[in-house]
């Protein structure tokens, strides 16, 4: 099913776009359903689509020689799945697999890029949304690098617990 023009993306990343922009984009979307443990894309493959997750959880992973696929992050409802389609070389940096059943809006990347070229104002708005997503994930990654829950080095005397 193709969503109606202006239909919200299900609490998703595109909801911050102006209604007209969102409507134009959603007109290019169709529903996608992934049963549990479906490989949605593989690291290194061509990034020709992206998704807004409507329900369920997707694990992003990296293949580590000798260890296999290692999950580096999970994303859930409302999240943008995939941004490698935006910039050359347009290959996935990570793999993605559904954890349980996943419903999503799926977008054809080439069609979206064409729309962005045709409507630079829409393109700027969409790129801003994608940049916000990338920024959020960069901040989250940097926070994890701090290893906040790791072995504490501070002296005792704090407020507990």
């Amino acid at each position, binding site marked *: 099913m193709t969503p109606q023009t202006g239909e919200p993306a299900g609490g998703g990343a595109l909801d911050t776009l102006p209604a007209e922009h969102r409507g134009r984009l959603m007109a290019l979307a169709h529903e996608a359903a992934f049963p549990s443990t479906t490989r949605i894309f593989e690291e290194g493959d061509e990034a020709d689509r992206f998704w807004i997750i409507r329900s369920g959880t997707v694990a992003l992973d990296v293949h580590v020689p000798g260890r*296999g696929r290692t999950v580096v992050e999970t994303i859930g409802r409302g999240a943008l799945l995939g941004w490698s389609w935006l910039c050359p070389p347009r290959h996935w940096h990570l793999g993605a697999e559904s954890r349980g059943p996943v419903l999503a809006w799926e977008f054809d990347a080439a069609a979206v890029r064409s729309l962005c070229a045709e409507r630079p104002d829409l393109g700027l708005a969409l790129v801003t949304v994608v940049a916000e997503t990338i920024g959020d994930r960069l901040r989250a990654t940097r926070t*994890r690098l701090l290893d906040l*829950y790791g*072995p504490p080095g501070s002296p*005792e005397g*704090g407020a*507990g*617990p």
Partner: protein
Amino acid sequence: MTLAPLPYRVVDRRDETHDTVTLSLEPAGEALGPFAPGQFAMMYAFGVGEVPVSVSRIPDGQRLTHTVRAVGAVTRALWTLRTGAWVGMRGPFGTCWDLAAARGNDLLVIAGGIGIAPLRPAIDAVLAEPHGYGRLNVLAGARSPADLLYRNEFPTWERPFSTVTVDRPDDDWTGRVGVVTTLLGEAHFTPADTTALVCGPEVMMRATARDLIHRGVRPDRVQVSLERNMRCATGHCGHCQLGPLLLCRDGPVVGYDRAEPLLSVREL
């Protein structure tokens, strides 16, 4: 409230993780006054020293429950206590989670690491009065699956949403991976009518509070539990001073509207 430690005996000990234990304590004679969720006691390991530890459950009667992570000499001494051992207790100290202000609101309980311990009594209080509050969401972050506290209790907190995320999954972990703020997008709450209780590392609390406020939660409805060096616990020694606040007295639970300007000052 007494200034001299009262003797309590360890009546139960539960190993939560490789370095964290929950101790149940009963008084030998006189008991401390009643604790509220979020308050702390000063626990004295005889001959070693005294540390502040929040209550991690408030059972009926005079029993106290504290969860201790072995991070230094005193907490390591407490961590080694076996059933029948003695400990000195002072308290209750500090401010509590303001659940009265949260009545009727959706609730976000957001924990990082051992920060879930001071929040557990608040969760218990909310679950004991299911019609007093809106939707309860419990979101917790931990370093790894092996570091998760109260793992078996999360399923009982699902009303409507409770989940855990870890920074470093092992090969058997099938849950969420990432920082705890990534779970906010899936929680069930109306920002304008939400109270958030947040406890964890300060960087995590700042990031969480910023995200909540960005989503429309009022800063004064974001309650954080702050950690500083507490010694006397009675507001006299000044070790726990944070700007105008003495956190043993004016904290540990503080509204983010008061905490934010203080936390943004380096080395305050």
